[in-house]
């Protein structure tokens, strides 16, 4: 299972990466929306975790691009936002995100959301990339 992380804050990105890798996921890293979209287009991941406030292209822009592109339109997206406002969550969901987590989220919450998205979404691509561990 491959998870693409779009997060501009290096420490948060590293923490996410460590956690998910320790949980057995394959992780791809991007520090802004544009980078993330480029990676997703090249090889669509099983799940995208994206921050909202990012330079160059923000999380909403990334969601829009992913949803417009047939290759990535079905990839589940979880929005991670530092802002607690309901508006931000609603905007993300209305643009096509599947779930929403507010920082700081608990590890259990994150894993639960990740599992839920991976289970409920029919695999868009046949070749299954199993857990590495």
């Amino acid at each position, binding site marked *: 299972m491959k998870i693409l992380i779009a997060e501009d804050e290096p420490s*948060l990105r590293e*923490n996410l990466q460590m956690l998910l890798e320790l949980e057995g996921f394959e992780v791809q890293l991007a520090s802004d929306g544009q980078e993330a979209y480029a990676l997703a287009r090249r090889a669509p991941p099983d799940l995208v975790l994206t921050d909202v406030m990012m330079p160059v292209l923000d999380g909403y822009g990334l969601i829009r691009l992913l949803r417009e592109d047939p290759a990535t339109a079905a990839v589940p997206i979880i929005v991670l936002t530092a802002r607690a406002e309901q508006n931000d969550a609603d905007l993300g969901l209305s643009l096509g995100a599947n779930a929403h987590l507010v920082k*700081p989220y*608990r590890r259990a919450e994150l894993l639960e959301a990740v599992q839920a998205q991976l289970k409920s979404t029919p695999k868009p691509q046949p070749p299954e990339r199993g857990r590495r561990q």
Partner: protein
Amino acid sequence: MNQGLHSDLALRAQLEQLQLQHQALVQRHEALRLRHRAQQASAEEWLRQRTRELEAEAAEQKKAETLQRVFYRIAERAAAGLSFYDFLQTGHQLLGELLYAKNCYICLYNAEKKTLNFPYYVDERDGDTMQTDDVPLRRGLTEFVLRTERPQLIDAARFVRLQAEGEITEATGDLSFVTWLGVPMQLRGAIGGALVIQSYEAGIYYTDSDADVLAFVANHFSSAIERYQAIDALHKSEERYRSVIENAGVGVVVVQNERMVFANPRLARIVGYPLDYLLSQPFDAALHPDDAPAMIERHRRRLRGEPVEQHFSFRVITQLGKVRWLDLSAVKIEWGRADATLLFVVDATARVEAEQAQRITLQKQVELNDIKSRFISMTSHEFRTPLAIIHGSVELLRHYEDRLPLEKKHLAWQKIEDAVDRMTRMLENVQTIGHAEALPLECRPAAVDLAAFCGVLLDELRSVMGAQYDRVFWTVELPPQGQWYWLDETLVRKILGNLLSNAVKYSPDGGTLCFSVVEADPQLVLSVADQGIGIPEQDQASLFQSFYRASNVGPIIGTGLGLSIVKQAVDCHHGSIELFSEVGKGSRFTVRLPMVKCPPPTAAPAVESAP
């Protein structure tokens, strides 16, 4: 014989007859003579009578002509704009052409108040005792005329009789007149006064026909007096209006042909110019230049009958150069048969200033609210991130303790420490601005060796920022060492410290950082230019507000306080700050402070103790 007798008898009879005939003739003659004499006498009488009648007719004619002339002249005098007294005096002279009128007076009667006054009184015995103040009615001679409403001709005998009858009991003045003649005057359909003449001369008696003449004259006086009274009432009412306008608490102005044609004293006080000056100038002379065009336009539109707001405020500049706010309401009126505008003006300076103060307070409130919401939005973003880092690191350490390689554990601990530091620094900054806003910064300049000061500042910056500091290529231009300036070191440290650390912080990809301090007499120009991410144009105006951060800062941490501190310090130092920036190309901040060069403090110790 018979014949003789017969003839004698016949003769006798004949004689008798003749005698009788003679007698009859004599009688007839006498009768004729008498008749003739009677006829002669009646002719003489008739002639005399006729002559008398003709004479009277001629006198009447002459009198009528004189009357006519006198009445005409009374009317003419009344219209000549004489004062009331002068008119009455002229009337008296004219009366003298008709009647003996050496002594004459006029009495006016106020039926409502039951009083009399004597606007004209000429008397050879009493003297000129004009009595314009009202006196109460008594039982005197004049009052008798007023009471009876008829002409009264009174000689000594009748006077005694009237006194005895109780008709006249309170007569005053010299009462030794030969005849006294008073006629009532009709004013506005009622008895309104009396015209009186009297004689003290033994040979001069007034008659009933004199009374008729005097009544005619009185009649002509009446209409003139009525007119005088009407004019007087008009004057009084105009005076009342004038007094109301002159003493009104509002300024009153009439503007016609773009000039003030009338203004009351209050207006002069409100506008702060003498009345003569205002009336001699075009009406916009004292207007504030920013308000004048709109005022003139409104005035013209009002005169054209177009809809114009009736109440509005505008400014004037007084002779002493002070700006005053006035409230005005205007209406179109007719003034001297031409269009004009009538304006009522009130000094509204106090009200407008109070409103402005209120607006400023409100604005401050709004600004504070903005700061509050920006602070909340800043903290929710800037504090959540380090909290999320701490939280994530703690969870990693707790849940994967056994599986986490040592160096990853160290990394996690380090992240926690960094995040805590980051939050601490932000809180410190927030406290700084809190203090700054509570206690206004003070400018306490002293001699500063600017080159040495900047050197120390750059060293401090390098030790605080670590590797970031060397990410940019520094070019530094400073005044020569040992050049002292009169500056507040604390304020300059706030200014340069924040500008330089920002320049480093927002140049994530390096580039050149130009820091210069140059003299541009009378200013000292401090400039910090980077080639960093730049500041979007829409953010530049708000950039110096507390907790405001540009929209493109991304993950670069900050509180949005640095530049607000810089701005306050610059203001406090009586300087100015300017920003030029382009997104993706960099930013340049230029600070200008007043430049005062000074000798080194050791060379002039007196400076230290100077106030």
